[in-house]
């Protein structure tokens, strides 16, 4: 240390590169913030005026130019419900296996992880193709809320599994050791101790998965379909909020006003959902789970 101590006090040269870098970095931050404010501001500005209780509850009229989004919200929730009901048990089971019962060098565990990594990267339109071929045609479910929900379940599994696993990893090992030392079976240690302690991770996963599902469009166009009527059962086709926005802006001339309002509703829902997720993971997991 004695040799380097003379270096310690050398003043930092504020060279040209340093100044340029500072300017560029601040500029980048400003541009990104500006774009963000622009997008969000535009949508709030144009959307807020349309939103009312009747907009949220009434059915759309005149191809959506008038009226509200009542049935569309119902369809969205139903699709979401199917998705969570299927993905939850499957995902939690997988996460428990990966986190609690497989060592890191286990071949089966590695294969499952690898395939989940690929699944996480599969483009949503490919999920749409698959969902159409498998659920709608092969299993004969047709364009239905069920097909859409199942397709989304496949899509949200990786994020659900990853954060549930994270939840289990954040449970201190003392609980496992303590339970084992008391002669408890792994099943009851899991049910009574680990599962409650890992619940935040599970919640984060579920909420992130929900966010992903609510935002999804491409995977739903050919699975849950376009029909904007109030769905009577899970076998009916149902239009999700995101598809509604797409349809209004692309296929309906003069649909922009309601598209803005629907976009605002969608963003607000996602904002709530994502805040829950990030609050839970900051508070309980002390780790940010990046959902990409």
């Amino acid at each position, binding site marked *: 240390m004695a040799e380097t101590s003379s270096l310690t006090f050398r003043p930092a040269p504020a060279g040209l590169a340093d100044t340029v870098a500072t300017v560029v970095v601040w500029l980048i931050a400003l541009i990104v913030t500006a774009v963000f404010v622009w997008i969000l501001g535009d949508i709030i500005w144009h959307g807020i005026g349309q939103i009312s209780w009747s907009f949220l509850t009434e059915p759309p009229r005149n191809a959506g130019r008038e009226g509200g989004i009542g049935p569309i919200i119902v369809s969205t929730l139903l699709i979401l419900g199917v998705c969570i009901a299927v993905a939850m048990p499957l995902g939690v089971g997988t996460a428990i296996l990966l986190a609690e019962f497989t*060592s*890191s060098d286990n071949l089966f565990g590695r294969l499952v992880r690898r395939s989940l990594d690929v699944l996480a990267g599969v483009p949503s339109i490919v999920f749409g193709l698959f969902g159409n071929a498998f659920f709608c045609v092969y299993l004969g479910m047709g364009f239905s809320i069920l097909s859409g929900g199942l397709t989304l379940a496949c899509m949200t599994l990786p994020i659900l599994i990853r954060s549930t696993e994270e939840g289990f990893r954040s449970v201190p090992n*003392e*609980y*496992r*050791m*303590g*339970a*084992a*030392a*008391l*002669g*408890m*079976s792994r099943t*009851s240690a899991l049910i*009574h*101790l680990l599962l*409650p*302690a890992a619940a935040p991770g599970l919640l984060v996963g579920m909420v992130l998965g929900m966010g992903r599902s609510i935002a999804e469009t491409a995977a739903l166009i050919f699975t849950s379909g376009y029909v904007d009527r109030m769905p009577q059962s899970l076998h009916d086709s149902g239009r999700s909020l995101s598809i509604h926005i797409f349809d209004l802006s692309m296929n309906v001339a003069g649909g922009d006003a309601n598209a803005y309002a629907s976009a605002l509703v969608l963003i607000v829902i996602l904002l709530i959902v994502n805040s829950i997720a990030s609050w839970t993971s900051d508070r309980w997991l002390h780790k940010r789970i990046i959902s990409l």
Partner: protein
Amino acid sequence: MTSSQNGQATIPPVSQPQPDKITPAPFTIGPLEAGPPCCTPDPLIHVQNLSVHYGQKPALEELSLTINRGCITALIGPSGCGKTTFLSCLNRLTDLIAGCSVKGRIIIGEQNVRDPNIDVRALRQRVGMIFQKPNPFPLSIRKNLDLPLKEHGIKKRGEIEEIRETVLQQVGLWDEVKDRLDAPAMSLSGGQQQRLCIARAIALRPEVLLMDEPCSSLDPNSSGLIENLIRQLSQSFTVILVTHNLAQARRIADHAAMFWVTNGSGRLIEQGTTSQIFETPADAITAAYTNGRAG
């Protein structure tokens, strides 16, 4: 637990077979009859040529040790010499550690601990463990005690209540918590938590209690309480106590075993009665360590 006689010719028969299920009321602490323990050496635990590796790394090598019924045996030695590892072998907690491999023979009573076919849960009921850091479950005080009991087939309300009160009284916690049994166990102080953990362990009426530095994370006051408790418990259980507190070992242990790291792995270098180890050690390292000159 069946009393299988699988190849233990060298092991003397045990006077008191462990009941398979916890026998119904009246509940008393511990399986040993009251009476002056540790007067006549009555070996309960036999360990022969025990070696433990974590992956490729040796943690314990060629360890042989006999532990007597009804005694407090103190394990002493510097950090990392494998004391915790040794304890985890006795209740097969090593099963839970990925990459941990155990070789050698461990017999407790008549039971071959390393036999892959034994009921590990029953073994762990028989051999209780207290950890270095108090580890109550994040549940209520009541649940902490009830959960393991229910797990071991004690389901009757009255019975559970009786056991709960007896053990809490035994560890001197009853008066402090009887009015708030439904409070979270985590809201107790460190010393109270550790006593709760001890209560939880003895509620299963184990034969052997493994205590891994039970006072290390506690203040002197709670530490003294626990020490008295251990002394008391030693009348009903066989206690193996890991401690860094040599004065404590000297005060309460009947026997002592000295662990040391040689050639990168933990070994047992000396064992004997406490007075032997502390006053007339045969090994130079032991002498230095107990005098505070090494370790």
